[in-house]
């Protein structure tokens, strides 16, 4: 937040976001500058209710397989909402979030296995490390936009993949063989969860779910804050925002770092759950999959990418058998981009809105 210049003139008419963004309460925030306490409180209550409700999911889904799908989907989803946040707030499409996801997964594996750290401190280290990596890479790539940004992020992600497989770092990363996550002793736990608990979807679930809700709530807060408004102004017209006195570099870098932090959290969760990290977590396929999940889920709505991720994991289990997963994913991406610009969730919201105007219109007609 410190990156936002204090001289922001949010009532300057030139930087007021377009009215079609008004659904996010921009007018309120413009008057009171930043977050309104009542709105935050309402959001907090909603988040708390969702959080508690989600903890009962393992009681509803008794199949261990579907529980596994749900847990994997939530982990991928945390990365996807990070990618979606960046796409929505800054208009930047990243194919390189695997760098932070895989980077933090390796961070956790290396800290526990090689350095003998407890999983808790290793997880903290990995998330911080993944976020710092995002700041470093972001500092180099954030000036570019569009395809330049997309390909630079892809190149950095793939470069990290190549590094992880080098024979010279084999003693650290295990190269193509990967690295097993070994805790210092059998009795070590992560926040009270043993390594075996973390491997079981139903005992792993609360951890993943809490992370998802907290991350989503934090992103929601950021989006509604003055920082979020600044980001939108920059997205709509970078040049104009710059002339209006904004520092456009730091807010974009901030958004990239936040989005990278989400991927880092997801990477740590993955490493905790799987207890095994291989170069796949940095690979091109995961980069593509996470982006497809984001697009198909729809990133105009904050949690859309997470829903896309769950759908993706479900489809992976369903069609992986036939080998046609790639085919269906490609078709889903094409259809989503061409016909459902807001993704699945955007479409659903659009239908609901249409329904509402329809019923409202009918009421109106009856009244007159």
């Amino acid at each position, binding site marked *: 937040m410190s990156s936002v210049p204090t001289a922001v003139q949010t009532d300057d008419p030139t930087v007021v976001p377009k009215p079609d963004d008004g659904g996010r309460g921009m007018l309120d925030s413009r008057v009171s500058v930043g977050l309104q306490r009542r709105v935050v409180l309402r959001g907090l209550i909603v988040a708390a209710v969702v959080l508690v409700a989600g903890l009962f999911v393992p009681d509803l889904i008794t199949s261990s397989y579907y529980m596994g799908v749900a847990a994997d989907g939530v982990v991928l989803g945390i990365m996807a909402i990070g990618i979606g946040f960046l796409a929505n707030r800054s208009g930047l*499409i990243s194919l390189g979030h695997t760098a932070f996801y895989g980077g933090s997964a390796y961070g956790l594996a290396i800290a526990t296995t090689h350095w003998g750290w407890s999983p808790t401190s290793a997880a903290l280290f990995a998330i911080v490390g993944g976020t710092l990596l995002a700041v470093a890479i972001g500092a*180099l790539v954030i*000036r*570019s936009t*569009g*395809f*330049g940004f*997309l*390909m*630079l992020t*892809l*190149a*950095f992600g*793939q*470069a990290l993949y*190549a*590094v992880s*497989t*080098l*024979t*010279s770092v084999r003693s650290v990363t295990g190269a193509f063989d990967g690295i097993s996550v070994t805790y210092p002793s059998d009795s070590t736990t992560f926040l009270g969860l043993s390594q075996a608990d973390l491997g079981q979807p139903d005992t792993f679930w609360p951890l993943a779910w809490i992370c998802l809700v907290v991350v989503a709530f934090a992103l929601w807060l950021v989006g509604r804050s003055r920082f979020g408004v600044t980001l939108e102004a920059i997205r709509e017209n970078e040049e104009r925002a710059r002339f209006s006195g904004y520092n456009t570099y730091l807010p974009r870098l901030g958004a990239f770092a936040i989005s990278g932090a989400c991927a880092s959290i997801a990477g740590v969760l993955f490493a905790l759950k799987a207890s095994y990290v291989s170069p796949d977590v940095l690979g*091109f396929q995961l980069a*593509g999959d996470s*982006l*497809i999940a984001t*697009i198909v889920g729809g990133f105009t709505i904050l949690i859309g990418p997470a829903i896309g991720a769950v759908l993706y994991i479900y489809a992976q289990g369903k069609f992986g058998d036939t*080998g*046609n997963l*790639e*085919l269906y*994913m*490609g*078709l*889903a*991406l*094409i259809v989503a*981009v*061409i016909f459902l*610009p807001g993704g699945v969730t955007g479409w659903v919201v659009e239908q609901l809105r249409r329904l509402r105007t329809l019923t409202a219109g009918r009421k109106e007609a009856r009244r007159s």
Partner: protein
Amino acid sequence: MNLAQVLNGLALGALLMILSSGLALIYGLRGVMNFSHGALYMLGAYFAYEATNQGLSFWLALIVAPLGLAIVGAALELGFFRRLQRRSHIEVGLVTFGIALVINRVIVLIWGDDTHPVSAPKAVDGTTNVFGTDYPTYRLLIIVVALAMAAALVLWLRNSRVGLHIRAASHDTETSGILGINVDRVSLVVVCLGGALAGLAGTLAAPYFAVSPGMGQSILITVLIVVVVGGIGSVGGAMAAALLLGLVQIMGNVWLPSAAVLVPYALLIVVLLWRPTGIAGKRV
């Protein structure tokens, strides 16, 4: 670095040159980075395999496969690029990403997962003595074809009427349209040509590498890097960057084999720090 290694670098660069010039052409005109270019290249290799398997000579395959890919390019232009030209370029890029996935799988459904052989024709299967070094004739052929293609493409873009239109439309699509250039037709020519070049590269690669389902994806990232290093959208820049990467890659293989896989990424980062718009800057 002896002569054989320089030739190795040129051969690799030559293949990348054919591929990346097509990619840069499409980008210049449609503003879309075509992520299915690797898949088109792979499709070209499979067309060549199928053609030789059906008894056609390799020389004929060298014509048939690019023609087939030109048709695929036309389908892409008519089915996607033209329809979506009012959409944001990045969205169209994502569509090509999806197209790549579909083509990859369709290839496996048709030709299976195996690695297929395509042998070079007898006339170029041996070695040729180049200044005292025996070097595979087939690799020399790739270098010659690529250089000839590059010269022809540059001359055509510079001197022909269509070339003028392409350059104009790449520079400013809207104004060219106003000035009476049929941008849709120019675009059809360019995307067909880009597809044909991918097909040519795939055909040439078939006896060079092996024809297998992973070949498109592994080369795609390298070609994307070449295009960015060359200066996005610049055909000449892409050609220069391709040769540069080929040579630097081989130097890496010879002198620093343990980190040779990092060469393309290192080149990308160095060039972009030195010259953020790539070798050619913003020229077409």
